[in-house]
């Protein structure tokens, strides 16, 4: 809880400090807030959640909070250039991000559907605003519109699901819901349809088929800076919420929804990777690859006892942030893969980070992505072997996407342009790379 408090306060402070029109000041405050929140979560350790009996399965709230804070920190550092660009509003942006992060933390560890819903909204609403951050650009406006309407539509669906669940069980407390369901209310269609509606909402949040549509357009319209935050934190929060709710509360009906989940996984992976092949815009490519990765994340549901999601989402988030940062170097206003030709030659750090992140996303050893994928499949294979096989086939296609990107990025240009990296960018890149390699020691 106190991490949320810290975040909120630092958000407020940042908001007021933003009036000073000193971007540096606000970024410092934001970073301090994030670090503080992370530290708080760390020292708080694992608090005893109502779901504590499954602590083996769900990493302690502390860990997730730390992950979220780190990712957000990297995101705002990576996007700092953009935010600082109009120092009118730097403070506001950072504050928005911090606020929505509070929502993410609330949402990622629900023990009460009411709280969960509020967290969801706190997470979403600031992002609606952030997407529309480019006041001048019509693309940004369109993205904001699409995200807003689809998003609120999805929250209506989730709400409906919550209501149905409440109707079936008479409580919002997940622990109670589970105990009530356990005594056989599962027979009631109301509960099931409610859970299905919830599933739909989660699927929307993490952007998996068939609720992925907002993804590409919104990623495309949003600025790199926002993308870094949106593509990572929202997914992490969403997937953890999904895992917690379904992996715990609806665990008894595993046999019921696992096939549907497998279907979602396979569809998302194939659709995401295949469609990514034909993209000409980097942000859309990342969007589609994130759809596929969402599919992979859902594998965590396959084994409700000892699945290890953490490594994968962390690897995914780091790799994505690194790539978007690199993209923001060449594609600040435009966004086309053509500019990626020979990008690796602009700066050695870019090259290293790029290769590492792409291979990590493609899930090739010895990078974090592989171990994430491995630990997911490791848990999943005994339960859903065929889904795993299909997923692997799909990830071959994915590897193609990433490899082609890498090949164009590594092509030696006729004349090598060096582009200097700003401090925070190089910091982000090196951190992500180190993390991707260092994962070797955390397994």
């Amino acid at each position, binding site marked *: 809880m106190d991490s949320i408090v810290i975040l909120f306060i630092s958000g407020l402070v940042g908001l007021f400090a933003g009036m000073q029109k000193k971007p540096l000041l606000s970024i410092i405050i934001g970073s301090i807030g994030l670090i503080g929140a992370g530290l708080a979560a760390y020292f708080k350790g694992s608090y005893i959640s109502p779901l504590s009996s499954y602590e083996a399965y769900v990493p302690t709230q502390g860990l997730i909070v730390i992950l979220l804070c780190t990712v957000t920190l990297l995101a705002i550092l990576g996007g700092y250039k953009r935010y600082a660009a109009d120092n009118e509003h730097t403070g506001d942006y950072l504050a928005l991000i911090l606020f929505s992060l509070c929502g993410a933390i609330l949402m990622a560890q629900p023990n009460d559907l009411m709280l969960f819903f509020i967290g969801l909204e706190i997470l979403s609403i600031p992002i609606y605003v952030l997407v529309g951050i480019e006041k001048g650009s019509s693309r940004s406006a369109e993205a904001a519109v699409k995200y807003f309407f689809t998003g609120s539509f999805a929250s209506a669906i989730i709400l409906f699901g919550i209501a149905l669940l409440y109707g079936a069980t008479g409580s919002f407390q997940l622990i109670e819901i589970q105990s009530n369901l356990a005594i056989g209310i599962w027979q009631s269609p109301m509960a099931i349809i409610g859970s299905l509606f919830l599933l739909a909402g989660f699927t929307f949040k993490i952007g998996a088929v068939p609720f992925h549509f907002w993804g590409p357009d919104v990623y495309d319209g949003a600025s790199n800076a926002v993308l870094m935050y949106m593509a990572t934190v929202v997914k992490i929060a969403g997937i953890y919420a999904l895992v917690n709710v379904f992996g715990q509360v609806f665990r008894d009906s595993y046999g019921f929804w696992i096939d549907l989940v497998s279907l979602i996984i396979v569809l998302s992976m194939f659709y995401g990777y295949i469609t990514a092949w034909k993209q000409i815009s980097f942000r859309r490519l990342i969007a589609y690859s994130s759809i596929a990765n969402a599919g992979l994340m859902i594998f965590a549901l396959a084994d409700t006892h000892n699945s290890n999601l953490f490594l994968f989402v962390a690897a995914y988030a780091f790799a994505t942030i690194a790539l978007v940062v690199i993209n923001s170097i060449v594609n600040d206003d435009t966004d086309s893969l053509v500019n990626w030709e020979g990008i690796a030659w602009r700066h050695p750090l870019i090259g290293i980070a790029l290769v590492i992140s792409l291979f990590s996303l493609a899930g090739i050893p*010895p990078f974090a992505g592989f171990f994430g994928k491995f630990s997911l499949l490791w848990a999943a294979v005994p339960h859903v072997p065929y889904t795993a096989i299909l997923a692997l086939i799909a990830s*071959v296609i994915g590897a193609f996407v990433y490899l082609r990107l890498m090949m164009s990025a590594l092509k030696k240009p006729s004349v090598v342009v060096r582009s200097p990296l700003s401090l925070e960018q190089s910091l982000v890149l090196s951190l992500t790379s180190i993390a991707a390699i260092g994962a070797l020691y955390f397994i």
Partner: protein
Amino acid sequence: MALILLPLVFGMIAWFIPGNISRIFGLIASTVALAWSIIAVSYFEPNEHLLVDFGLRFVRFSVDSLGFTMILLTNAVFFLVFLSNFNTSIVHEKRFTALALLMQFGLLGLFTTNTILGFYIFWELTLLPIFLILYWFGAFDKPRALLQFFLYTLVGSLAMLLSVIGLMHLTNQQTYDALLAADLQSLGNTSILLMGGFLLAFAVKIPLFPFHTWQAETYTKAPTAGTMLLSAIMLKMALFGLLKWVLPIFDGNATDFWRWPVITLGLVGIIYGAVIAIRQQNLKTLFAYASLSHLGLIAAALMLQNGDTNLISVVQIVNHSIVSIGLFLAAGIIENRLGTQQLDQLGGIAKVAPHFGFWFAVLTFVSLSVPFTAGFIGEFFLIKALFNAHTFTGILASTTLVLGAVYMLKAYQVPMFGPTKVNSFQDLHWSELTVFAILSIAAIYLGLAPHCITDFVAHSLTQPTH
């Protein structure tokens, strides 16, 4: 285990050295690695069994005599590759030096790792450097050829990943010895499937018959050094995996199930590759198909799982490394000097470059596996094993001798003999000369005293469980 980490360190350093000393650096680095491994071998008791643990959960290392043989082979190959390309343009790129050294690290890891997952990790780890080498220095006009190489490799290795996961789940073991001890017979058909996953990956790497189509194109378009690395040492990963890991672990019904299918594919590959090679106009392509033919023989013989054959197959593995380095070096020399490899544009080189003519001839005869060369010992006993397993297989396999003579002599005579079509051809550089000499001496020594390998390896092959 500095032996393994050494190339990694060098590879890291190599990124930061100035480009003009990169070839010296690469040479020195590989030499140091080679020397170190030789020293290590001299202190190594063939029947002992070193365990190394970096504190990783999934990756541990252990070296036995087979591992040491492969280490020596690897380091020697890299040394020779650096030396033989000493006066080509590629070694002036520090990228190449660094990547090659990283790849060397991956290979050493593969040959020494003790855990099945570690095997997979290093298997994939070698992929990154070779991919970059091929992409940066290769002549791939369109990326699809390169991507095809990757399609195959990835499909194979993902199948292997599935098998690895399944194996670890079903046995709850991950170390080599434990897996050997584990009882896979009880799994029945599951073990057959698991082995199938491994075999797919290996069949792509070796390559076996239907999975070989990446080979010719990749070999042809790749830079000579890359081709050498690919065929001299990377393909050996698969044979090593077959020899050390898969066949002992899956000994029993799984092996019985896969034996004849694989042998059949190997035989098809032998004849298929040889027959295709006869009509090839491009030297590298021809050698690529030739190597398809040779490796099919080794793979087929390995499946027989009889002790002596395994020992001899190690000799043949080494021999194939020798041959492929030599032949691709020759092809590369021709390509460097003349810019073409099309046989119809070549002729009479031996007149203008007698040294080259002579050494190329020696290597040709080595690859023809005439007596006095390691190839003869290898092919003789491998074909003998096949012959004993089934007369017909032996006869089919022995056609490789005749067909091999057909295409190898063509590959040698057309560029070297006949009326001179090239006006100027700079004769061998000292480095190339050294490489050729080393290779020939090694081949002949092994041909007369193969037991220097077989006796050494016997310690780890005859009693797999230490």
